[in-house]
């Protein structure tokens, strides 16, 4: 399940917007300008079912997202969808992995507390006995130069 964000969870001054997510889910987003730096040396890992519903997260994922494991597993992965991310990026992600290929990109993710963090993400299909049973994403620390490029580029893609 995915709920509207609640003011009591937010740290700092926030803006409000309603995002239209896949499958007509509308979600109220509360977001701040507070960035959490990517932790050195760690990987943020999650796995989803074929529909993008989270089935597994590692500890770094939990720590960086600000959610509890119980809130994440069973939720659509768009629980992290930040309003500054252009929809075209995720269309490209899904088009690529549905072809059975690997997708890579820079993503600004939304935290439960309204803040954000940048990652360099790779998504691959999990093939078992010739069938796609889900997808895995591994994020690593992005270079600041690449992030700055995306900060300029992404607003032009809406």
């Amino acid at each position: 399940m995915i709920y509207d964000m609640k003011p009591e969870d937010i740290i700092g001054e926030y803006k409000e917007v309603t995002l239209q997510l896949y499958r007509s889910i509308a979600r109220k987003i509360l977001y701040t300008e507070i960035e959490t730096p990517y932790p050195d040396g760690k990987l943020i890992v999650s796995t989803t079912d074929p529909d993008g519903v989270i089935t597994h997260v590692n500890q770094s994922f939990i720590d960086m997202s600000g959610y509890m494991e119980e809130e994440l597993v069973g939720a659509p992965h768009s629980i992290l969808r930040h309003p500054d991310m252009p929809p075209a990026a995720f269309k490209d992600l899904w088009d690529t992995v549905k072809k059975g290929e690997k997708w890579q990109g820079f993503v600004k993710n939304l935290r439960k507390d309204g803040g954000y963090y940048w990652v360099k993400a790779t998504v691959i299909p999990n093939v078992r006995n010739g069938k796609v049973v889900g997808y895995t994403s591994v994020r690593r620390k992005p270079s600041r130069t690449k992030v700055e490029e995306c900060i300029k580029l992404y607003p032009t893609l809406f």
Partner: protein
Amino acid sequence: MAFMFTVSPDFTPDHLSGWYIFNTWLQKQTGEGIHLEMYDDFNSQRQAIKDDKVDLIYANPFDAAMLVREKGFLPLVKADGTADEAIIAVNADNKVEDVAHLSPGVKVAYTDDPDVKMMGMIMLEPGDLDATNIVPVISDTYVLVAKHLLKGEADVGIFLAEAYDDLSSVIKKQLRILVRSQISVIHHALMIGPNLQHKREEIQQMLLNMNNEDKGQGVLKSLGFSGWGKVDDEEMEFMIDLMDTLVM
């Protein structure tokens, strides 16, 4: 015909005799003729795998993908409490505090250990460094990686974390860690090839029981392990998927 057992060439040389002792133990337990073949480098070992000569292998995570997906190998066990982690270190005198402060043209010392090099290069990425803009200083051992840093022949060293931690305190005092990976799910594994797979469960059980018997405990000690833990098919598939996301 004896089965052939081999060990990834990135094992620590201190445990060379340990693998021979382990192989003797394994032959006694299984009643099979198993010949241990040690290769000096990754290329000659890979060739042997390609030629279907290998039946049992203590494989590094990099080779595991190929072994499972192209050669039909299955996982048996991993050493308890071990994970492959990498360290980025510099000379203690180096002013650099963060990988982001390194610049293209930086001299990077590493060994040909493929997963450690990969993890190291990932940790250099936040500094906009990649294979195209670093100067490699290829080193035979991690001790030599350290020496290159001490002599100023390299600016940055990529180490297997275990190997770094094992360096003498005199050397470590002259080095400084910039980043230590905490990935925890990438590890070596003992894997079994198609010709021996009818014995998979039996061998797996023997290995899991190894630390419960006196002889077994001694053999484990000579390998530097406390015991073996089971690796099931899905855990191995997950690790392979994860490695797959990291190779680009």
